[in-house]
């Protein structure tokens, strides 16, 4: 699991929050290459047990509040060669 970085400790102390993202997937476009999983800086994507229509295992999101969560960095969206995964900013809950 990702260890707490200095920034995260600081955020906790000051009560500020990380940007948060919602992860979207067009499951049947995924070819299970694992690039999004390997390079997510927060390690919140894992291989799922599911098969998609083409027989590949698409990624799954495993978050652990409050720190090991998607921070909307957009890297998975940019590295995905299949135009399958993308993120949107998660609006703060009131």
């Amino acid at each position, binding site marked *: 699991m990702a260890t707490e970085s200095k920034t995260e400790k600081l955020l906790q102390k000051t009560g500020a929050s990380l940007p948060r993202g919602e992860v979207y997937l*067009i499951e049947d476009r995924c070819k299970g290459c*694992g*690039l999004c999983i390997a390079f997510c800086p927060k390690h919140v994507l894992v291989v799922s047990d599911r098969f998609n229509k083409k027989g590949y295992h698409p990624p799954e999101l495993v978050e652990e509040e409050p720190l090991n969560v998607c921070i909307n960095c957009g890297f998975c969206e940019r590295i995905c060669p*299949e135009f399958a995964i993308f993120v949107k900013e998660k609006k703060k809950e009131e």
Partner: protein
Amino acid sequence: MSIIKAETHPLDDYLRTERLPHVWCPGCGIGTVLGAYLRAMKNVGLDSEKSIMVSGIGCTGRTAGYVRMDSFHTTHGRAIPFAVGLKAARPELNVTVFSGDGDLFAIGGNHIIHAARRNANITVIAINNFTYGMTGGQLAPTTPETGITTTSPYGNVESPFNLAGLIAVAGASYVARWTSLHVRRLEKSLEKALKKRGFSFVEVLSQCPTAYGRRNGMRDPVDTLKYFQKYAVVKNHVNPLEGVIEPNKPFILGEFVDAPEEATFEDKLWELTKSEFLHTSQAERSEWIIEHRRHLEILSRIISGRGEDNEQS
């Protein structure tokens, strides 16, 4: 929170989604680089109605078939002359060549150095996966020394071309090199390349797990990206001749050339021929060309000595 099911992707407007999934192998970097290109297009606000993508033959050459804009999949090695001609006739269009290292630097090598020398106002994206991916992984002019390919089973004994260096000394206006891992910087660099007037060239080192990686200890696409992560050194504006790539040694990424604007090939052609056209602007000339296309075709047949009925020969 789990992954949310989606039907459409933010880049779908720029893609022929009806043709997806594309042909590229799982984890091939071509799709990633295409994504960076389409994001750059979107960020600079290029109109797809006024943009054209030209590709040659190869896995990378298949890109032309997936973009939702006019595109042309030329014969092997001829993407550059097609694009240069297109831009000369229709200077108001944004013309991009998107092709492979083999297509652009082996069979098409002469075309690209001369297009750079002429400062043709086109953008060229070269995916350098160190091999001819489509035909099963033969030795390319970009294969690193010692690299194993189907035609160098004991290891490559040749020195590869430094693509960015070669195009820089040939006279290009913008030259950069990134990898399929450096997606954000690649996207920003492509924005600059698209906006630049003059010949712009972006080399993108990319993984071909199927034909090259498999034979060189990088069977998994993640392996090549980890290799890039380990050895890439980002430095801007160094001497492009320092941009050599040797196996298991650091290599330079970054912007090598961002030259002040100079007259392009099309500008000079226009200056030379505008009196012949009796039109007041390049836009009017383009309209004239579209209107008289049929006559121009017949004329060019007469000039080249080809009749109407042996069109195919």
